[in-house]
């Protein structure tokens, strides 16, 4: 792990200042209670675009700053701390990654500049079941003339409601479970035959189920190689996992600091409860887990930037550890706050609800334990 460059330090500080000022947890709470259709405030996303955060991994040639994943991770961590709701993950992280890795010149030209400006929202549509399983794709893309016809469904697609375009994994051959025969498509959401059902999720963010009925797309909609889309999909997913892990690192760190503060102020039995050794040891263990997880998240992001040979293992490591840590810390946050932590008026519940969703996205702890073991050859 490298220490932050001056540039990165400035980026982190800017993100910290902005989230504190423009998007504290109270803002997310207001958003939730206002029932915002797509789970985020377009004005806020516009601002984030203006701050340059939507283009952190977008090449300079396409109007981005090309700072890389480690840098984007710094922004994601800060937005994670305040539960900032925005398409940063779906678009600035995943959408931009997909285009960088697999986009044609035309696709890049069409989308990357708009992404960098915060003027477009993309969504990655992969899973068709309640559990993450990238190879378990049944959705079909039937060749028709020069183009394809898409039929099938995708579930719990993050930011699909607000999305201008979808990155869709469909099957041009083979059957659910095969890694071969998968092709990715970049499809505008206003294409005929696409129906989106907005979801009301426990974390009050934007997500939707999507039905594709005879959706006609041209050959130019193909993202990357036909038939061999799985390798590209895995690369995109690993970037999604590492970046989301950075957001989770932020959630967990903030949840821990809020709890630590409470331990230092809440009095019971004539003592600040933070003086009770059992709580001290639990806090110290949480801190240990947080420090270990931070190392994994930073290593994964840097491995991506360095195009290292252990990206896959490190991304599974980062996502597994981040899932484990945010799970532990969000539960301890509620428990250590006692009754007040059970109330909707307190933020503990918001962190715990967001935690469970991020744990599940792109594979939880057990998914990545299994993947890590496989990558390590046992």
């Amino acid at each position, binding site marked *: 792990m490298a220490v932050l460059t001056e540039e990165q330090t400035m980026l982190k500080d800017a993100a910290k200042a902005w989230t504190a000022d423009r998007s504290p947890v109270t803002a997310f709470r207001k958003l939730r209670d206002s029932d915002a259709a797509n789970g985020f405030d377009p004005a806020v996303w516009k601002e984030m675009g203006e701050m340059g955060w939507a283009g952190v991994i977008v090449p300079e040639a396409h109007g981005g700053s090309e700072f890389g994943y480690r840098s984007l991770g710094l922004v994601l961590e800060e937005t994670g701390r305040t539960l900032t709701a925005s398409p940063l993950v779906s678009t600035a992280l995943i959408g931009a990654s997909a285009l960088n890795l697999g986009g044609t010149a035309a696709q890049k030209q069409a989308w990357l500049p708009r992404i960098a400006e915060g003027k477009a929202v993309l969504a990655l549509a992969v899973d068709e079941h309640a559990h993450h399983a990238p190879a378990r794709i049944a959705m079909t893309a039937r060749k028709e003339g020069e183009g394809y016809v898409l039929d099938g469904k995708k579930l719990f697609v993050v930011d699909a409601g607000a999305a201008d375009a979808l990155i869709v994994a469909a099957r041009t051959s083979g059957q659910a479970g095969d890694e071969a025969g998968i092709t990715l498509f970049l499809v505008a959401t206003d294409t005929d035959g696409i129906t989106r059902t907005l979801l009301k999720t426990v974390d009050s963010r934007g997500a939707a189920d999507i039905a594709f009925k005879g959706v006609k797309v041209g050959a130019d909609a193909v993202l990357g190689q036909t038939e061999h889309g799985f390798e590209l999909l895995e690369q995109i997913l690993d970037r999604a996992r590492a970046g989301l892990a950075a957001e989770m690192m932020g959630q967990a760190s903030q949840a821990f600091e809020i709890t630590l503060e409470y331990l230092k102020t809440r009095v019971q039995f004539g003592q600040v409860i933070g003086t009770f050794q059992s709580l001290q040891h639990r806090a110290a263990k949480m801190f240990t887990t947080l420090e270990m997880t931070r190392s994994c998240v930073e290593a994964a992001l840097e491995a991506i930037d360095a195009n290292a040979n252990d990206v896959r293992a490190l991304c599974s490591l980062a996502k597994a550890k981040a899932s484990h840590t945010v799970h532990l810390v969000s539960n301890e946050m509620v428990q250590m706050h006692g009754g007040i932590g059970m109330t909707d008026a307190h933020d*503990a519940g918001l962190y715990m609800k967001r935690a469970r969703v991020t744990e*599940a996205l792109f594979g939880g702890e057990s998914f990545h*334990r299994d993947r890590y073991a496989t990558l390590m050859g046992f």
Partner: protein
Amino acid sequence: MADAATALPSPTGLDAFRTETRSWLEANYPKSLNEPMGEDDAPWGGRDYKPTNPDAKVWLDRMGAQGWTAPQWPKAYGGGGLTAEENRVLQQELGRIHARPALMSFGVWMLGPVLLEYATEEQKQKFLPPIVRGETRWCQGYSEPGAGSDLASLATKCEARHDEEWGDHFLINGQKVWTSYADQADWIFCLVRTDTTKKHEGISFVLFDMKSPGVEARPIKLISGSSPFCETFFDNVKVPKDQMVGKLNGGWDIAKRLLQYERQNISAGGFGGGAGLEVEDAAKEYVGVVDGKLADSDLRARIAEHKMDAKAFALTVRRAELESRASKGPSPAVSIIKYAAATINQDKCELMVEALGTQGLGWEGDAFAPAARRETRAWLRSKGNSIEGGTSEVNLNVIAKRVLGLLDHQ
């Protein structure tokens, strides 16, 4: 072959009782109650009890008349006057026909037992029969904003007063929190401070009507979206002198005794688990099965571990009952039950949400199966298991000190 773990001695003396009971139930259990109970059909009774299915009220009235809503209480106070063995038979027979509970009642579970032990004859006559008949719904005025785990630091003031209209009475001012269903309860049993110079010895136990002038209950919205608890405010609430149970400043012993009943009641069936689904069934449906085993072997191992814990817990509750009855005192196993119940139910709910995958992450809407949505709410609700009725930390302190004999830090 019987299942030894649940097999019961069935002395022939009980067979007669079993036969009577069975036929009484056949005659009196309303058939319409056989359909599943709706989410809001919990039979809490009380002045304003209006179940969606009126037969639920009929069922309560019949059971109440038998005293079988409080089977082991003396008949003199409206109870069923049954022995432990007869009660066990009654519960088995109720289970056999999957009867809905006739009454769920803090009065039966918590207040009644301490009234039987500490109240005056007049108080018993006045308060117990309506509890049995489900006519009075009680709530528990214990916790305060500054008195959670450290309950004895409660501050709600109770002063002796005298005036024309009320004669000698108590004047109560202060605030309670986590008062279960205070907004729906008829009466409250309440811990108040009657001596500010002492801690435990300055607490009294009083009963009063929630309709008394100066009482206000504000529901607290929980992370699960429901509001089973209230903040309850007392502003110059007047309480007749004869509504204090036990001696002035003698309330702490009654308070502790009541907490024991509360925990035993919690223990009886753990925390009733989530919202009805079995974890392994949810996993089979949403994770899938390969060669007869759950497709996710990692999750499978953790579910198996939980199921074993849950079974060990059920066996322990049973053992604690038998040993306590045999030794005429609590078995050491009793002390772990609240802590274990909370931990195991929370494990179950976490595994459930994990097994449901994204189906377990819904809040509202038809895109999520209603059963799954209920489990998600139950998961959020379960976080309170290790907080309410004594936190797990306090439970562990109690085990370490009272049962294991470890000393306080100096």
